[in-house]
């Protein structure tokens, strides 16, 4: 219902928009609306109810959306510019100050690409769905558009709407196609996220009305307003709760293992691959970009929470006996690096946080897909009931091994470089005192030990050892089919590509991150009394070492 109304709204605006910006093709609006329109066509696809026709249609739509975003990146986006690009602006409800404003900068463009990419693969992963396939693919496609909108909109009220609307498909996907405890999980998910997103609305209204002029919720306007420090801190804490639920930040995480534990593989991929990234993106976009003074005060907290995330979730993951929940906790653990990166006040660290989001989007999606594929064969998620599966499913074993190694940050894959950037950025930046940095780095590095412990034990318990006779007597273990290999292959190409040459990805957003960090650093320097003197170094003190001097030019022979 809600979507329908919005959809028509947007449709009419689109036509307006195209007239308005005739010389500028509306790539982003198109990539938001195309899958949504496609979703509404799903009911009209002739299908006998087994989903055989619908899935092809959905795949076509998802792939086209991916193509649109890629074209947008190629033709409309210049990575070297830090400003908003591909911008479209249509006044929507001028009295309210509401505008349909979309655009992309370095923060959003990679995530938009990630969204359309993962969704296309999720549709392919949903190939075997035969229960209410039309509704299923309708929801997936609607979600595609909604999630691109979350990353692309440049207006805070619009952002709130997109954020909320995207919850409904997830809720339904969980509640209808989930596991045994699906109702509980779905309810928990919706209460958590909907409840916390009230903060977004409140803060959006507060920020929009701040200053007393006509309300305006566009990011550009908000970023020019001069909020007081107290106001910023209030807004910041509200937003931190809202986004902390999504990311998730311990102790706001408990919806995630339940939701992930009950979701089916394609939904799982979307949850891990994209939904968690909305939290990280929003933290960067609002907390770090729009509220820089408060960010300077809160950054140490973010970093401490990040370390708690890494260690706490790694330990819980280690103790988990349920495969899905294990991987779900490992996601939480990995998102800890995003928090540290965002709080690091260094270009390198923040860039690492961004890369970690993309990297985890790919790796998390691949692992969750494999969990689903394995469950289809073993019909159990309990590690105790598996064992020796590797002898029958050798290719599956190989895929699992590669993805687990990617997840434990093996060099040559994207996870390594992003974690390294976070580490190096945090340690070398002089924003915090040396003892604080040493302690945090040491604790975060403990995560480096814990991750292989739980991932490799998991592999050992599933695949190694003698075959579990009981499992074999009840199920037939068929090795991975080409579709599954293809999906993992598609995910591995960027994982390894970024791992081998990280600039493939980092170059696309570095300039935006640089601008963002510069703004934060200036705000930090302007603070008269930085909180927590123990932690924060007086920023004006000169950095010990001048920037790493690199050999002249790119190549040197001696």
């Amino acid at each position, binding site marked *: *219902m*809600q979507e329908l109304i919005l959809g028509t709204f947007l449709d009419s605006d689109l036509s307006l928009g195209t007239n308005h910006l005739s010389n500028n093709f509306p790539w982003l609006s198109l990539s938001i609306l195309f899958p949504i329109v496609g979703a509404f066509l799903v009911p009209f696809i002739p299908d006998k109810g087994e989903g055989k026709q619908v899935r092809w249609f959905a795949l076509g739509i998802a792939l086209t959306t991916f193509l649109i975003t890629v074209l947008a990146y190629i033709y409309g986006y210049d990575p070297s510019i830090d400003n908003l690009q591909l911008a479209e602006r249509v006044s929507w409800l001028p009295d309210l100050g509401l505008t349909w404003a979309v655009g992309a900068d370095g923060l959003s463009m990679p995530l938009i690409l990630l969204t359309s990419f993962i969704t296309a693969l999720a549709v392919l992963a949903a190939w075997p769905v035969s229960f209410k396939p039309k509704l299923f693919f309708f929801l997936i496609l609607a979600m595609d558009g909604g999630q691109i909108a979350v990353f692309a909109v440049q207006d805070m009220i619009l952002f709130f*709407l997109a954020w*909320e609307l995207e919850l*409904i498909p997830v*809720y339904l996907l969980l*509640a209808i196609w989930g596991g045994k405890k699906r*109702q509980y999980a*779905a309810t*928990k998910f*919706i*209460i*958590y996220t909907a409840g916390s997103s*009230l903060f977004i609305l409140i803060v959006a209204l507060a920020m929009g009305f701040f200053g007393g002029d006509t309300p305006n919720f566009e990011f550009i306007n908000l970023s020019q307003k001069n909020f007081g420090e107290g106001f910023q801190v209030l807004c910041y804490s509200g937003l931190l709760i809202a986004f902390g639920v999504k990311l998730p930040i311990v*102790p706001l*995480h*408990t*919806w995630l293992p339940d939701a992930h534990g009950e979701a089916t593989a394609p939904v799982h991929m979307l949850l891990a691959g994209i939904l968690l990234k909305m939290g990280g993106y929003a933290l960067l976009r609002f907390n770090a970009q729009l509220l820089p003074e408060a960010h300077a005060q809160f950054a140490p907290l973010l970093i401490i929470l990040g370390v708690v995330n890494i260690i*706490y979730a790694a330990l*819980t993951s*280690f103790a988990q006996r349920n495969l899905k929940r294990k991987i779900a906790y490992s996601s939480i653990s990995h998102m800890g690096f995003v928090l540290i990166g965002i709080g690091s006040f260094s*270009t*390198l660290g923040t*860039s690492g946080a961004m890369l970690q989001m993309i990297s985890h989007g790919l790796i998390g999606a691949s692992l969750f897909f494999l969990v689903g594929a394995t469950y289809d064969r073993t019909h159990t998620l309990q590690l105790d009931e598996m064992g020796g599966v590797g002898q029958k499913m050798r*290719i599956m074993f*190989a895929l699992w*091994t590669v993805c687990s190694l990617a997840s434990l940050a*093996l*060099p040559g894959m994207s996870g*390594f*470089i992003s974690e390294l950037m976070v580490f*190096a*950025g945090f*340690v*070398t930046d002089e924003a915090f005192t040396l003892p604080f940095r040493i302690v945090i*780095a040491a604790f975060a*590095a403990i995560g*480096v030990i814990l991750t*292989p*412990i739980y991932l*490799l*034990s998991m592999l*050992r318990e599933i*695949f*190694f*050892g*003698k*075959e579990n006779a009981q499992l074999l007597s009840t199920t037939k273990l068929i090795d991975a089919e080409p579709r599954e290999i293809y999906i993992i292959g598609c995910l591995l190409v960027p994982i390894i590509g970024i791992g081998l040459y990280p*600039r493939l990805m*980092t170059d696309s957003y570095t300039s935006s991150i640089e601008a963002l960090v510069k703004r934060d650093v200036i705000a930090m320097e302007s603070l008269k009394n930085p909180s927590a003197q123990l932690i924060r170094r007086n920023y004006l003190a000169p950095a*010990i*070492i001048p*920037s*790493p001097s*690199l050999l002249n030019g*790119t*190549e*040197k*022979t*001696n």
Partner: protein
Amino acid sequence: MPSAAEIAWLIPVLPLLGAVITGLGLISFNRTINRLRKPVAVILLSCLGAAAVLSYAVLLEQLAGAPSVEHLFIWASAGDFTLPMGYVIDPLGAVMLSLVTTIALLVMVYSHGYMAHDKGYVRFFTYLALFSSSMLGLIVSPNLLEIYVFWELVGMCSYLLVGFWYDREGAAHAAQKAFVVNRVGDFGLLLGILGLFWATGSFDFQGISSGLSQAIDLGTVPNWAALTMCLLVFMGPMAKSAQFPLHVWLPDAMEGPTPISALIHAATMVAAGVFLVARLEPLYSQFPLVGMIIAIIGTITCFLGASIALTQMDLKKGLAYSTVSQLGYMMLAMGCGAPIAGMFHLVTHAFFKAMLFLGSGSVIHAMEDVVGHEPILAQDMRLMGGLRKKMPITAITFFIGCIAISGIPPLAGFWSKDEILGQAFNTFPLLWGVGFLTAGMTAFYMFRLYFLTFEGSFRGENKDLQEQLLLASGNSSDESDHAHSPPGVLHESPWSMTLPLSILAVPSVLIGLMGTPWNSRFAALLNPEEAIEMAKTFSWGEFLPLAGASVGISSVGISIAVLGYFLNRIDLDKSVASRFPSINKFLANKWYLDDINEKLFVQGSRKLAKEVLEVDAKVVDGVVNLTGLLTLGSGEGLKYFETGRAQFYALIVFGGVIALVVLFGVLGNPPN
């Protein structure tokens, strides 16, 4: 024509290409590729062979005095941070390149015979090529970070290869242990690298050492911090090169196929730690304290390995502890500030230890035909004996290896070990004493291995003993398995296995002559000034007593072994083991380090994780559920929830959310 060093980047890339091609083939056309054994082996062998030829060319150039070559490109950058990657060719690297490619090539030829009956033949070759590529990459790395990258990659290959026979529980645990223990070392290495980068703004070896001394002079980096960082970095080599107390993974890693034990866990990867310390020599030489700690750890490792090897009954485990002990010698040399001596021992040890391991593989291969594919039986020396008559080539090469490692001139081990002991004598006399004693132990346990395996009479057909051994290991014997494999006959291994053994015997005998203290060509290559200095200060008066003493103690060790295990004149069981039962038990239990490790870290971490999960489920989630129930689940809703009609309940919530959205949409409209 470009010089070999200019195209040296091909050395790691060639095997990688081979591995990627076969690896992709395995994933996409598993069955077909698995059948194409010969072509795969030929492709990978020629890739590695080409890399070897290039390496020799590079080494020849370096011998002829060519300058070192470094090529870099910007790999990652953010803000003012840039990270160059590339490759560097210098004498040290050239030596290692030739060493690794030679042994990898020989091991690959050997594997053709050893793995002939294994269904994972192609996978094994792919892993081998992948490992060779990573190891070669590690050698040519121009900076610490790139070393770290390949460091982890060789660790991964080790994980894959130790767990190669993944249906064996032991292999599964060993692979995981190897990776995790190495990660503990990498934890330190990573923090150390980050710390050094913070202090010096550089990752490359020269930049770090000069930057750090500058920073200390300026007072920007306190001395304790610099020391800590150096020691943290050393944690990496400690784990990789199996130094006490992080050596625990190496003996377990013997669960992998024997060619892997020879290549990775004796000759190359475990030596990477020593290599890294050699690379960091300009850094470590600034801190005598760090040198001393390295030397002490090396000595402890050296003694510990040799002492445990004294009582091992498993042929491969005996060799593994011997490797631990020899790696301790190399570290001792590094700690004494004598990287050339350490590197020289690395090279000689690589040849003879690879040969010994491949020899043990040949023995196991033969034993498997008699006792079946059960590692507990096939590797136990109590079931061997008298193999020399059946497998003469294996026996002779193994014997040469024993003499070489025992330090009898003029074989390789003598020159390198004696140089280390000489250096230790001048720097840390106390540590020399321990190293000297260990030399005697080494000679004893190596000849013990030789006599138990190759001399006496064959004990393999003793079914009672087999049953006993199986019972002792906790594995009940698998009756059906025995029925299927009728006892075969002992036989010499095929040419593909004996050829590498014979080839390796040549350097095991001769390579030591490259490093005679009066005219060390090895030192002249690595550090010409020091070589001249060495030759100048050399005096027979100093050399002969020390060398004589080492040879003497080795001879004592050999004599005891001859008396105890060949001539059976003294019963070591009665005269030593039963007289000091506590020491015997202490050694047989490997100093109880595995038990401590299991109790303290494995069980401890499991318990901690369980408790955290409890907290998560009961406290954190409990609060959530409680509030949820109290606020939303009160009254009728709760009843429906309890009776399972949750759809209805969910619908209410769903409607509520939509209502909220609409409500706020309306509320957002202020009445102005």
